[in-house]
């Protein structure tokens, strides 16, 4: 369907030299399999994936090796079959030059796929499809790597229009162009799947009019299913908000999302990845990358995620004066710290840079508030104000001027006659604000935990006090009761314990006595049908036991008598002694078992033992007087 659509326009923008022809001469080539792949675990806007494999594990191509951790995270997969060499910090495709955790694979060259299961899309609920996309590692391939499953939720009023972004406005980059030329059917299929998940009514594909081949290919594939619209070539027409505005006229205001207005926008590469994931069961393990810049043969390559940038650029023949790589285009691209940084899901292009191709910026001159940047800004911001506030570290004021609506497209810096690296100031200000927010969140959490801890300590204190008071009351009542009815063994009856300490001790002693009484009261098991010898043995042991215990009681008595100075200890000792006496009394009172049918010798022995026992029992002195 040809574009009969009314097109709108966005303010600002620039028309840089496109430099796209060189890399669209040859078709997409599949980059050769590297021997070693480094798959970073952090490849989405959310948290890093959790590794599912260990060093030494064998993995198959397309096997999930990292699981999504949280809503904005997606899974990562093995780009080829092989062995996990290690999991640890590796160079990362990030301007910081810091290492980040990654899974390092040694390819075995077999390219053996894991079992792939195409999804029955019609019979699967949208939520399950979103989970499948998360587990297939699908993120926005335009460069922002926002998880697609999160964007595939219908807005509050449903989603009317699904926009597929084939604008690709940045100079040098042609990966979407070539993908549309060669794989239009797959992109359309992916778009149809996304339309199904979003329950959208129409698909609109926006392509800049400097890509006639891609427009023709997409129109041929689309038929009546989608509307393919040529949009005027102007950087940054490929920005999501700018493309939405051009195609629908909707201007998404500050702090809102396009879904609130029934529009959702995806890159063509993302649509193709969705098609691969759902129709073929293939997770996102490779992407088309433009190799351009200071190279002899600029071209697009289908590159496995995790391939070292150096190996991919080598295919295009880099010139010897190449001094660094830029991931992305010249406007928004990020300088790579390392030639060995891996290709990640965000890598749409690798530009070989040289001082001749991208000369260093001339020295910064003072801002004279000429306003050229404000005219060029496609987000309708005041870049000069943002610059002044960022430069002065006045981040609150910068936010008031909507710093976070800046898409870092670089138009302002491109037109700035004073050569001020404006975007660098905005990036600096944004990361400072994020850091402050992280600190503030941590501080708020710490305050909350500290206050809760204080509250908890107070509560525990008061609970303990209440418990103690209750126990004291109970103990006092018990003491009164025992004072009324003294025990026959002469238990010290806690003659009105003076302090809580004494009460506590009394309680402990009572518990001890109970514990000791229990085993004594329990009848010994398996004592029936014993041989006479065994019986005799038992009896002998019993005797020994009896002999041993009285002196202990004796000791206790003596100690309690002598240590009247320490009433607490004496109390305890006295109680223990009393408890022992009780236990002995109980034992004595229990009738001896199995005394029928004994031989006369045994009978005599028992009699002798009994006599000894009597003797022993009479030995200990009378239970000690309660102290005080």
């Amino acid at each position, binding site marked *: 369907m040809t574009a009969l659509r009314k097109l709108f326009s966005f303010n600002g923008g620039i028309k840089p030299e496109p430099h796209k022809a060189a890399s669209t001469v040859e078709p997409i080539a599949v980059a050769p399999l590297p021997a070693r792949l480094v798959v970073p675990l*952090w490849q989405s806007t959310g948290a*890093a994936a959790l590794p599912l494999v260990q060093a030494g594990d064998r993995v198959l191509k397309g096997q999930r090796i990292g699981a999504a951790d949280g809503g904005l995270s997606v899974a990562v997969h093995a780009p080829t079959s092989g062995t996990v060499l290690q999991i640890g910090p590796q160079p*990362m495709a*990030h*301007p*910081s030059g*810091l290492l*980040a955790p990654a899974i390092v694979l040694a390819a075995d060259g077999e390219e053996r796929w894991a079992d792939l299961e195409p999804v029955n899309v019609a019979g699967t609920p949208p939520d399950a499809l979103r989970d499948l996309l998360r587990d297939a590692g699908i993120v926005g391939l335009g460069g922002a790597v926002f998880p697609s499953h999160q964007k595939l939720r219908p807005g509050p009023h449903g989603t009317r229009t699904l926009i597929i972004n084939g604008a690709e406005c940045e100079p040098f980059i042609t990966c979407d162009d070539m993908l549309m030329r060669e794989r239009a059917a797959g992109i359309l299929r992916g778009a149809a799947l996304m339309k199904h998940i979003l329950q959208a009514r129409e698909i609109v594909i926006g392509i800049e009019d400097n890509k006639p081949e891609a427009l023709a290919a997409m129109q041929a594939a689309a038929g009546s299913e989608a509307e393919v619209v040529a949009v005027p070539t102007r950087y940054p027409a490929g920005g999501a908000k700018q493309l939405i505005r051009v195609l629908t006229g909707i201007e998404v205001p500050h702090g809102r999302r396009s879904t609130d207005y029934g529009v959702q926008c995806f890159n063509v590469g993302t649509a193709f990845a969705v098609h691969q994931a759902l129709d073929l069961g293939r997770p996102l393990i490779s992407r088309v990358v433009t190799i351009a810049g200071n190279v002899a043969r600029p071209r697009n390559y289908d590159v496995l995620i995790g391939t070292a940038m150096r190996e991919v650029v080598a295919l295009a023949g880099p010139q010897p004066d190449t001094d660094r790589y830029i991931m992305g285009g010249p406007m928004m691209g990020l300088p790579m710290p390392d030639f060995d940084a891996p290709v990640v899901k965000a890598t749409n292009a690798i530009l070989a840079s040289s001082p001749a191709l991208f000369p*260093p*910026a*001339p*020295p*910064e001159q003072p801002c004279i508030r000429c306003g050229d940047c404000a005219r060029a800004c496609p987000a309708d911001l005041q870049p000069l104000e943002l610059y002044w506030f960022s430069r002065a570290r006045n981040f609150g004021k910068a936010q008031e001027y909507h710093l976070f609506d800046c898409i870092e497209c670089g138009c302002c810096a491109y037109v700035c006659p004073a050569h001020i*690296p404006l975007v*660098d*100031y905005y*990036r*600096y200000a*944004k*990361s*400072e604000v*994020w*850091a402050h927010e*992280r*600190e503030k969140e*941590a*501080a*708020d*959490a*710490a*305050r909350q*935990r*500290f*206050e*809760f*801890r*204080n509250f908890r300590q107070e509560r525990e204190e008061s609970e303990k006090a209440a418990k103690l008071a209750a126990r004291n009351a109970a103990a006092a009542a018990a003491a009164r009761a025992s004072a009324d009815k003294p025990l026959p063994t002469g238990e010290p009856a806690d003659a009105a314990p003076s302090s809580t300490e004494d009460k506590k001790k009394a309680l402990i002693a009572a518990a001890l006595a109970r514990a000791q009484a229990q085993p004594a009261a329990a009848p010994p098991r398996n004592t029936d049908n014993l041989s006479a010898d065994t019986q005799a043995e038992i009896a002998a042991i019993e005797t020994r036991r009896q002999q041993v215990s009285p002196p202990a009681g004796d000791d206790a008595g003596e100690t309690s008598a002598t240590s009247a100075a320490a009433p607490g200890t004496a109390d305890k000792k006295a109680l223990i002694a009393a408890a022992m006496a009780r236990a002995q009394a109980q034992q004595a009172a229990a009738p001896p078992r199995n005394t029928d049918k004994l031989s006369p010798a045994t009978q005599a022995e028992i009699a002798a033992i009994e006599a000894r026992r009597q003797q022993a029992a009479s030995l200990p002195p009378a239970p000690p007087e309660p102290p005080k």
Partner: protein
Amino acid sequence: MLSALLVMTGIALAIGAALGYAAVRFRVEGDPLVEKIDAILPQTQCGQCGYPGCKPYAQAIAGGEAEINQCPPGGEEGIRKLADLLGREFKPLSEAHGVEKPKAVAVIDEQICIGCTLCIQACPVDAIVGAAKQMHTVVDKLCTGCELCVAPCPVDCISMVTQAETVQTWKWRYPVVPLRVEGKRAA
């Protein structure tokens, strides 16, 4: 004359009643200044200022009992913010209360830990988990780096580890333009 007096008295009574009602209805709970000071303090709860936590220190500052330069974790930036808020002069960090250090978290050497729970009791933000005679560990996301757990440890198994910058926490640097000195002239 009388009517004018009555009108004036009536207005005065009406306004007085409105003000009295507003004073009850819109009463501000707590001290808003303490809250503002507390929001600036880093919530490390380390007690280096001489008060048992950030809130008590905020109360002391608000009450005029404490200086604004007693918080080492807040550092110079914190002192500047407090000075701005309170309209006082900036003062360098008081050396008696400590020195500014990079953010660190406590790490327990789990091979040495005997499970005494002393560090758990010392932690002001409940960031240490463990039980008696069981190994303890620090939940590093919750640790404020106050170092209060280091001293009570009887086996010295807790060390403070400086937090390294990660890809996620990395910040873009303040743009600086390198001065290029060329053969003919300095640019």
